[in-house]
Every structure is written in structure tokens, then in C-alpha cells.
């Protein structure tokens, strides 16, 4: 598209800019403000410089220990989630029917978890995983397993992971399906003529064509899993103990629960910076491999 240079375009963009700036800049300024101040209470503040940040990033302090624990928990969670959901999503996309009534039917069912309010996702699994009233929990306890997501750390983690897989794999599958649909039949025909095995078809035709959508899917899932709040909050409340207290949950506890403004603010800034950094790294990696693909 040949774009015209015209500064008046700013007028068209102004509403968006104003709205987002209002929603983003003002709060962020507040947060930065809080992060460098301390209070005596009674709304009296004094300058604290980088004091909160020092405390936050010192693993030996109480705040720092709490922060790093939550950070590792969240990173571990994101890693596990990606390792399960990405291959599973690709696999489901490969198994989806190509045409016929099965397509609409599958798409409708797969889209369902994506449109359920996140707290209801938590509620569904809250009920489903209980050993007394839930089919899943009941089945597991009947198998003799010591399963209780409110008391056992492993049970809690497994339940949250299965819940997230249930919730979000469809997104990856749908994105990959879109990528797969764009492959013209001739490629499959040529592969048949060339005598390619199923695996060869996957690695040489399907996977390369899905690269772009996979990059988007991985980025989205990583970001969202790193920021996860509602579902684990409803399911376990962060427990048992701290076992499933991820960064967002901890932050909200600190900010709205304890009203520890300075610490919460510092944590917010660091949290956001970590995400931005990881996203930037990922994006650079993804776009440089995209740049290699320019035809010469």
C-alpha cells in the first residue's frame, strides 16, 4: 500500500491516543510515583529513591524472597504450559477434519472454552476436581490416588495445569488450523508423487507453513500465562500456602490486600519490565528468522 505522508492523520488517531494514554500513562505515572516513595500512613509520603527496588531485588530480604519465589513459580508454570499446549495444539490442528459437517461442529466445540468468563473456568474446575462432587476428582480418588487440590501442592499444580490446557489449547489449535488451511492441495499432491512419508510431509510442508501462526500463538500464550490471575485465584486462591501464588496474584495481594503501595508499585514496574524484555527477545528472534526468508 502506497501510504501518503500527511500529518493531519494524527487527528484520526487522537481519540485512540487519548483513551489509551489516559488508561495507561496516568496509572503508570502513579505507579512509578508510589514506587519511589514511602509512607507514614495518613497519606503522608516521603522520598525513598530506589529503596523498594533494592529490597525487591534482594533475594535475602523478605520482599525479595517473596518476589523471586513467585517469579520462579510463574516461569515454571509458563514453561510447562507451553511445553504441553503447543505440541498438543499442533496435533489437534492436524487431526481436525478438512471439510464437511465435522468442521463447523469441531470449531464450535473448540471455541467454547475461549468464551467462558475466566472465573467460571475456575469454578468449573473447582467443582469438577473435587473428590466429593466432581467427576474428575472422584475418579482419581477411586483410582487410589491421594488427590486433593486444596491441600496437596502437586495436586494443586496438576489441576491448574490441566485447567489451563483445557482452557487455552483450542486457541493454539485454531490458529494452527488457519495456517494449515492456507496450504494449497498441490503441495500434498506433489509430496505424494515424491513418495514422502507422513512425517516428511509434516516437517517439510506443514510445519514451515505454520511458522508464522505458531510464533503468534507462542507469544500470546507465554504472555497470558505469565500474567495469569483469575483461574488459579478462583481455584486455589494461591494455595495451598503459597504453592500456586503466581506473580499477578502476589502483586494484587500486596497492592489491594495489604495496601503496601510502595512495594507493590516497585514490583509492578519490575514485573512489566520482565515481560517486555522477554517479549522483545522473542520478537527479535522471530523476526530475524522471518527476515532470512526474504527472496534474493
Amino acid at each position: 500500500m502506497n501510504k501518503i505522508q500527511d500529518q493531519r492523520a494524527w487527528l484520526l488517531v487522537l481519540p485512540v491516543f487519548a483513551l489509551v494514554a489516559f488508561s495507561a500513562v496516568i496509572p503508570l505515572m502513579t505507579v512509578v510515583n508510589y514506587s519511589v516513595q514511602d509512607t507514614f500512613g495518613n497519606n503522608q509520603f516521603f522520598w525513598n529513591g530506589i529503596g523498594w527496588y533494592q529490597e525487591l531485588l534482594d533475594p535475602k530480604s523478605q520482599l525479595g524472597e517473596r518476589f523471586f519465589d513467585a517469579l520462579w513459580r510463574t516461569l515454571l508454570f509458563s514453561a510447562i504450559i507451553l511445553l504441553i499446549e503447543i505440541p498438543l495444539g499442533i496435533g489437534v490442528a492436524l487431526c481436525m477434519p478438512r471439510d464437511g459437517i465435522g468442521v463447523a461442529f469441531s470449531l464450535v466445540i473448540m471455541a467454547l472454552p475461549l468464551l467462558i468468563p475466566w472465573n467460571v473456568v475456575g469454578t468449573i474446575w473447582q467443582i469438577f476436581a473435587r473428590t466429593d462432587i466432581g467427576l474428575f476428582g472422584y475418579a482419581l480418588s477411586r483410582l487410589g490416588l491421594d488427590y486433593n487440590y486444596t491441600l496437596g501442592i502437586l495436586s494443586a499444580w496438576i489441576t491448574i495445569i490441566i485447567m489451563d490446557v483445557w482452557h487455552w489449547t483450542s486457541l493454539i489449535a485454531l490458529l494452527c488450523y488457519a495456517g494449515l488451511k492456507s496450504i494449497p492441495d498441490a503441495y500434498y499432491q506433489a509430496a505424494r508423487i515424491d513418495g514422502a512419508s507422513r512425517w516428511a510431509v509434516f516437517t517439510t510442508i506443514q510445519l514451515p507453513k505454520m511458522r508464522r501462526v505458531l510464533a503468534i500463538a507462542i507469544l500470546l500464550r507465554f504472555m497470558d500465562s505469565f500474567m495469569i490471575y483469575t483461574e488459579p485465584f478462583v481455584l486455589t486462591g494461591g494455595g495451598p500456602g503459597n504453592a500456586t501464588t503466581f506473580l499477578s496474584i502476589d502483586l494484587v495481594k500486596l497492592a489491594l490486600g495489604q495496601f503496601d503501595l510502595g512495594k507493590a508499585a516497585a514490583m509492578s514496574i519490575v514485573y512489566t519490565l520482565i515481560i517486555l524484555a522477554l517479549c522483545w527477545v522473542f520478537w527479535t528472534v522471530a523476526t530475524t528468522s522471518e527476515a532470512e526468508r526474504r527472496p534474493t
Partner: protein
Amino acid sequence: MKPRSAVMALYLLFIVVPVYWLVNMSLKTNTEITTTLTLWPRTLTFDNYVKIFTDQSWYSGYIHSITYVIINTVLSVAVALPAAYAFSRYRFLGDKHLFFWLLTNRMAPPAVFALPFFNLYSAIGLFDTPWAVALAHCLFNVPLAVWILEGFMSGVPREIDEAAALDGYSLPRFFVRIFLPLIASGVGVAAFFCFMFSWVELLLARTLTTVNAKPIAATMTRTVSAAGMDWGLLAAAGVLTIVPGALVIWFVRNYIAKGFALGRV
């Protein structure tokens, strides 16, 4: 059965069973729930649903949620349309940076905004109104809407704009009468995603409301901390929140099946 169909069937079953279980719960009496585990209700009852439809503290939750979701969707799309047009057709000072900055807002954890929004909306007197939640959600939905719309708009060649200008259309008239119908599916996709993200979000919706604008999500989660857990009622409330989403998917199923590969993906 071919392995492909078997895997697909298994996966669809995996998705459906927990939802079925919720529906199952919602149709049981509390005594049945607490005494035995049954795969379908022995004593079918609609009492839970009746309670929700008649108890104001419950059904108002739905009304509040729908209100802010609709406000947000309309607002986000309306504001995003001219902006997307600008990004699609023009080069201007800082355009790439602005676009990127918009997208980075999607990357900010909502948790970070919980406290600041709480203060901000209290300060401007919008606390505990659907407007607060609608505006708060704009932070994430507007960049998304701009991104989606820009993608669809780029598919419409500039020649159409130029032809319309030659025919004497002013920009607003051209936009409404010619351009919008061309990107109608894009507007639909953007509205769908705005609706979806606003409907499912809990943290900000709960933080910015207490009594007057309490969304159904808050009602449900506050029920959790009450003494006696009314599972049947909770399940019924949950089922009712799934209904709008299910209806939307059902009605657009053919569009989804045909081409969600259009546009940005």
C-alpha cells in the same frame, strides 16, 4: 475409526465433559449434590435457575456485565476505526512508534493496573459504574481492535478511496457509505474479540466495582467466600454466563469455518 478422528473425538470429549458436569450440577438439588455423585440429575430441578432470574442480587450481575461489555465494544471499535484508517493509509510523524506502543499495552499485566485504576477511577468519580470497567478494558481492547481493523483495511486498495474522492465524497461520507461495507467482516471480527475479552475478564471488573455495578463474575466469586457453598446455584450462574458465548459461536459458525484466516492471522 481412523486415528485422526479418534484423537479429535477424544479432544472434543475432553472439552465438553467439564462443561457438561457444570450443567449437570446446575440441575441438581443441593441435597443430591452433597449426598451422592450421579452422572445425571436423579431429581431434575430448575430451582437454581429460578433463583437467579428472580433474585435481584444475581440477575443484576448479568445486566451489569452485559452493560459494560457492550459499552466497551462500541467504544473500542468506534475509536479504533479512524485510527486504523490512519495507520492503513497514511504515514505520519511517529506512526510506527505509536502502533508499537499501542501493542505493548496488551503486554502489560492487568494486575499492575489494579491499584492505579482503583485510585484513578475513584478520583474521577467513575468508581463502581459500568463506565469504569468499560474504559479500563479499552486499554487492552483498543490496541487489539486497531490491529485487526488495520489488517482488514489494508486489504482494500487505495484506488477506491481515490475514486470516491474524485466522485465528490467527503471523507466521513465515503467512510460510512463505501468503506465500512467493504470491511464489514473486519468490523465483525474486531467487535467479536472486544466482546470476548471484555466478557471474560475478572480482575479489573471486580476491582473497579463494589455494589452498583457489580458484574456477575464478582457475585459468583463473592459467593465462594460465603459460609455455606451453594454449588447448584453457583453452577447455574456459571452456565448462564456461558450461554452468550455459545450463542455467538453458534451464529457465526459458518464465518469461522469459512475464513478466519483472513485478516491478521
